[in-house]
């Protein structure tokens, strides 16, 4: 016998609504149902006007990040059964402007991401490839941190982003660390200068909200600590 889920969805269309509201939908639960399946059900059968972002449906693109039952998660990777309740609350990601319903404007997130020079700058001109073996320490140092899919879950959970709109945020700082720690990269010193300020690494209070919500199990707090270490060594003139 199928059980009905009660789904409360944040609704807001700035073109027609004065204030946001929550719409409640009853959706029959299916086996192995993800929150994204739920949203498709609602959109297909009950309310065509519901807006949400999604793309790959397999936790690779980060498009479907939203606030599900009090935590930022990927809708495609969050199984309804795993939430432990038949009542599901869906909101857009916090700390970002709302465009419509569950869709947020990711521009502030990506603006800050761009500020840390998130692209590889080669140290030198080479005619051959720089080889890094699979088990090398230098690779292990940043391998896990490279998994970031820029979903914005960490940014939306960060208390410092909420209180200080200029704070770069965990994702940007994590990306900065990936490149600073990459021996092939030639812009490390400039990146340390970009992140070593009161709206960069020094704003983090190691609350670990970002770690708790990252769908790729990245530890941005660790990356930020490593950046801080490098900033201090640079300030004290200690070569690492």
């Amino acid at each position, binding site marked *: 016998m199928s059980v009905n889920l009660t789904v409360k969805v944040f609704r807001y269309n700035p073109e027609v609504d004065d204030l946001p509201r929550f719409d409640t939908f009853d959706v029959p639960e299916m086996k192995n149902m993800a929150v994204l399946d739920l949203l498709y059900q609602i959109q297909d059968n009950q309310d065509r006007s519901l807006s949400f972002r999604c793309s790959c449906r397999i936790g690779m693109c980060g498009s479907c990040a939203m606030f599900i039952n009090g935590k930022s998660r990927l809708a495609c990777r969050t199984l309804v059964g795993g939430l432990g309740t038949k009542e599901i609350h869906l909101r857009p990601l916090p700390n970002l402007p709302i465009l419509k319903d569950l869709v947020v404007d990711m521009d502030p997130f990506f603006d800050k991401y761009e500020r840390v020079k998130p692209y590889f700058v080669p140290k030198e001109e080479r005619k051959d490839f720089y080889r890094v073996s699979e088990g090398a320490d230098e690779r292990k140092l940043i391998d896990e941190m490279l998994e970031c899919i820029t979903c914005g879950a960490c940014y939306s959970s960060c208390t410092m982003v909420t209180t200080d709109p*200029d704070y770069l945020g965990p994702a940007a700082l994590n990306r900065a660390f990936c490149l600073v720690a990459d021996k092939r990269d030639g812009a490390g010193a400039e990146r340390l200068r970009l992140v070593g300020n009161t709206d960069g690494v020094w704003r983090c209070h190691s609350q670990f909200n970002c770690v708790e919500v990252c769908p790729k199990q990245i530890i941005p707090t660790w990356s930020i600590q490593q950046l801080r270490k490098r900033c201090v060594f640079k300030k004290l003139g200690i070569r690492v």
Partner: protein
Amino acid sequence: MINKTDGTLSWFLQRVTAVGLIFLLGVHLWLLHYKNPGEIIKFGDVAIRLRTLTFFFVDMGLLTFGLYHALNGINNIIQDYGIGTTGRRSIGFILVIIGCVMVFLGGVSLFKFV
């Protein structure tokens, strides 16, 4: 806009003063309560004690490290709320003045016993 205030030294000194405070508090507690347990002292005994360099430096250290740590911590909390460069610099300046005045007053009080 990224704030260009470098917080490296401030962050580093917050940790240095934290470690310093733990050590000095340990010394302070040991000297006061465990070196001569059960000892009953009067103000005159305190005055004699404060003439020694050990006590003077431990107390000045506690005062300086404690003030830096506390005021820097307050500065940090204020900065958490993104008040802008001018605001940060003004508040930072006021806290520095408060710190200097309190260290001076505390130092003068301690020095009177020397």
